């Protein structure tokens, strides 16, 4: 009769299943072929089920990951042997799989750490292949590499599970149609393909960070997945380029504010009102470190500029101590690299603080496409209040209140109106 080891309850790493799902799917897909991505996912699902059945009675094994890999590998071998693979393997592929599986210590060989990371990177490039629609790229990456379910992704992205399922389905169809293989992109292709991977990770992080969904946990999980994958790219010698470090820096600096961003009731707290002692110092330090690693070479990406902007905020101990002049310069650079209404908006805010509220208002008035946005209306109100025009400020905030659909945002604006009246 087996005794459950007492240690297992708290020793099981958080998110172990989720993280290992992504890694196992990547490895199995690489060896079974990308047309068998669905099979790889099923085999991994069976593996987790097996772990659940056995571990709940026997406790967690000493090396849970190795246990999972061994089961997944055996299931994959069984599947290949049972002849269920629809397309016949090319003889070279067959040799490759056999040679990998016939090594003296097969369970180790297939799942060596280097092999796993390599497979995850290849999978990332496949999921972010330019022929797959962007929103499908994001959903597929979160599903296959992040181990998130369609329900979880739908929650984080404020959309329906059906929509996410469709996006994932479309991505998988593309992989089959276009015969997207899990080969590493060639040297000439790499810069372009890397850009699209970075773009997906950037959007994934932002979606998690800015979504107004009330379930903060799932949003933080999405951000964490984006960071985990970016970190992997940053560490690899072929992809550890300055702009990858810059993106990593941006994510660290942004996520350092997670705890300060929402109040006890889940209401949003703006940068200017945040309790800066709640900012995570280790994340800020890591962010600054990545930023300095990113500052080699002469390529300046939008991630460099955005990370620098985030670092300016991180370095200000109080909102009043923000280096607005530097910030304004950075927003001007960003505006050249990536023009758009949101960048113009942030630039206008920087002008308002670096120069005068009046100039901020003038600058805001030039942006036509945001005039109905609650953030724009809120900012107008802020600058009018700084100018001493409380009545005009209030009228802008009231308009902002009518434009927001989020309860959290509404609470925030109501608070502004109240403080302005008192």
């Amino acid at each position: 009769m087996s005794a459950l080891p007492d240690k297992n309850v708290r020793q099981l790493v958080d998110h172990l299943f989720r993280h290992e799902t992504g890694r196992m799917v990547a490895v199995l897909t690489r060896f079974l072929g990308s047309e068998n991505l669905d099979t790889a996912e099923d085999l991994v699902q069976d593996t987790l089920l097996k772990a659940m059945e056995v571990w709940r009675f026997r406790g967690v094994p000493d090396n849970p990951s190795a246990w999972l890999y061994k089961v997944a590998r055996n299931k994959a071998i069984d599947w290949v042997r049972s002849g269920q693979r629809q397309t016949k393997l090319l003889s070279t592929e067959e040799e490759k799989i056999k040679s990998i599986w016939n090594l003296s210590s097969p369970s180790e060989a297939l799942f060596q750490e280097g092999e796993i990371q390599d497979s995850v990177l290849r999978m990332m490039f496949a999921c972010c292949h330019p022929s797959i629609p962007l929103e499908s790229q994001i959903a597929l990456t979160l599903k296959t590499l992040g181990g998130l379910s369609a329900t979880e992704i739908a929650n984080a992205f404020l959309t329906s599970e059906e929509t996410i399922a469709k996006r994932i389905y479309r991505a998988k169809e593309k992989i089959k149609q276009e015969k997207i293989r899990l080969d590493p992109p060639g040297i000439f292709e790499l810069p372009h393909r890397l850009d699209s991977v970075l773009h997906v990770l950037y959007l994934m992080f932002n979606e998690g960070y800015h979504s107004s969904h009330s379930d903060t946990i799932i949003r933080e999980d999405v951000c964490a997945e984006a960071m985990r994958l970016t970190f992997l790219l940053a560490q690899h010698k072929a992809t550890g380029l300055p702009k990858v470090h810059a993106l990593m820096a941006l994510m660290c600096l942004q996520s350092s504010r997670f705890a300060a961003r929402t109040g006890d009731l889940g209401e949003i707290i703006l940068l200017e009102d945040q309790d800066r002692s709640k900012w995570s110092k280790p994340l800020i330090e890591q962010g600054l470190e990545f930023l300095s690693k990113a500052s080699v070479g002469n390529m300046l990406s939008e991630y460099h500029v955005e990370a620098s902007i985030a670092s300016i905020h991180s370095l200000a101990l109080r909102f009043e101590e923000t280096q607005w002049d530097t910030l304004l310069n950075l927003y001007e650079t960003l505006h050249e690299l990536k023009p758009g209404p949101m960048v113009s908006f942030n630039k206008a805010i920087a002008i308002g603080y670096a120069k005068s509220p009046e100039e901020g208002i003038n600058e805001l008035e030039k942006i036509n496409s945001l005039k109905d946005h609650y953030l724009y209306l809120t900012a107008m109100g802020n600058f009018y209040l700084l100018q001493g025009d409380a009545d005009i400020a209030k009228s802008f905030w009231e308009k902002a209140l009518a434009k927001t659909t989020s309860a959290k945002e509404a609470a925030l604006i109501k608070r502004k109106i109240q403080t302005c009246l008192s």
Partner: protein
Amino acid sequence: MEKFMLIFHGGSDVAPEMKNPEAMQKHMQKWFGWVEKLKKEGRYEGGEPLEPSGKFVSGPNRIVTDGPFAESKELVGGYFIISAKDIDEAVALTQDYPDFIFNGKVQVRPIQKMDM
């Protein structure tokens, strides 16, 4: 104290909700919590998971046939041996069985003793 066998039928292994790695891990951790509680109270004697497949050997001719033995929602997934004062207490100890939400069932069977 008497001994009881808790036999688990169906449950999370067949639940469609278990398509989500995070949910699976959390659910498994509920099992750990339950076992830990039983152990702390000195009730847990042991337990084993059972493979879903196996063989039947039957009759005077020892005919061997393959499982499955029941529909998956009825299949025995494993058992615990626990100690309890009486059957009522043994039943009470199943309250934290995590698979009730997936329509899992627990059969509570007193283990026969030699001294009556």
